[in-house]
């Protein structure tokens, strides 16, 4: 049951992706070679934030797998998403080059009760996906480099699907649409609630 069907997905996430396409982000056919992202100016901010948030989200998927109540189908999806998040980080870090975010640069620090029940677990995962989608919406619209915009657009597509799936798991109406775009200042304040600097006393 928790699997979201194609129709639900189309109502929820595709609007954003279509907007992305409409804005000319995907200028060529889908099969064309992807331009290599060469972030310019503030593009680094969108990518750096994406790398930290994707790693945090990946940590959530890892923890969620140990929570009771998910069906076998849910677990397969959790596992596949965990792997996809790792790929996202790799792709973002490749674009960041010397500015790449390393796994030891920060650590996820989830509230102890966040994984006490399936519902609480999903609530946190959904929040993380909302932060990602909100930031990617902003980045896909305002990044200077076309390769970076395309990368952010594709990450947005994937995470919007995950968000729709999580909304479906909690019985929410998937047609709620995409969250509002967030600035890095707003999104960062939310992400900071669940991460910490490793080995630092304060």
């Amino acid at each position, binding site marked *: 049951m928790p699997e979201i069907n194609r129709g639900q997905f189309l109502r929820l996430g595709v609007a954003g992706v279509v907007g992305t396409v409409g804005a000319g982000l995907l200028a060529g056919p889908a099969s064309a070679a992807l331009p290599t992202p060469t972030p310019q*100016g*503030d593009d*680094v*901010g969108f990518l*750096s*934030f994406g790398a*930290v*948030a994707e790693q945090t989200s990946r940590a959530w998927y890892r923890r969620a797998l140990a929570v009771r109540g998910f069906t076998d189908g849910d677990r397969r999806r959790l596992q596949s998403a965990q792997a996809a998040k790792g790929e996202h980080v790799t792709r973002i870090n490749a674009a960041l080059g010397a*500015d790449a975010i*390393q796994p*030891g*640069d*920060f650590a996820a620090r989830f509230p102890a009760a966040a994984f006490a029940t399936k519902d609480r677990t999903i609530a946190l995962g959904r929040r993380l996906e909302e932060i990602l989608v909100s930031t990617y919406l902003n980045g896909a619209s305002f990044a200077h480099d076309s390769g970076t915009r395309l990368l952010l657009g594709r990450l947005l597509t994937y995470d919007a699907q995950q968000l729709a799936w999580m909304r479906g798991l909690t019985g929410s109406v998937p047609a709620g649409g995409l969250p509002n775009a967030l600035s*890095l*200042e707003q999104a*960062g*304040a939310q*992400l*900071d609630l669940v*991460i*910490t*600097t*490793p*080995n*630092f*006393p*304060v």
Partner: protein
Amino acid sequence: MLSRLIRARRMRVILLLATALVLAAPAAAQAFTVYGAASLSSAFPVIDSSPTYNFAGSNQLQLQIERGAPADLFASASPAEPTALFKEGRCSRPVTFATNILVMVTPTNNPAGLRSVYGLRTGSHRLAVGTAGVPIGVYTRQLLRRMQLTSILSTNTVSLEPNVNSIIAKVGLGSADAGFSYFTDYLAAKNRLRVFRLPTWAQPPVRYQMCVVKRPGADTAAANRFMQRVLSTQGRRVLKRFGFGLTPRR
């Protein structure tokens, strides 16, 4: 006659030996020298007061060591400098011994009325920032790039400082409205400063590394002893007291 000659030769040998001993004595008595990042200037002398210290920007210290300065141990605020010296064969493999985070500081009375780092976007403030070569300057630029705040370096009046102590001095004296420093430097001068935390997600990884300098006449044994002292439980306790983060024990 012969015995007088032998006696004279003996005297010359004794004189030579005595001269050699006199010349050698100051070198042996001289304390070994630690070249340390400016941000370590409060903690290191508490860990060990015996060395001669030279605290400055890590990039300046690296340059001095490359030019043959009499350093025995080098402790840097970033892995870049000791790694470069290691690759040049001028020091041992660097060891990480502490971590730090970046903060924004203002004078206690905060004359510019800043509420967060984002307040600097309005421009026209006086900022104290590390030069592009010194670790604090490199970290600050990295953090600002991540936060999409690089523009504040052109919309505000920026004074470029050679090390973190200069930044703290400038802000503490009120010559700058704000500056970017390490958390530990704020702690050392907190009676003169107000601190603003910077986002965790945007923090660059600040890693302190040290290595034993390889040069003719270096006091390698003393440098190794100093390194062990810093890595010891007592050394780590002092670093922690001064606000540094610690890496897991090897």
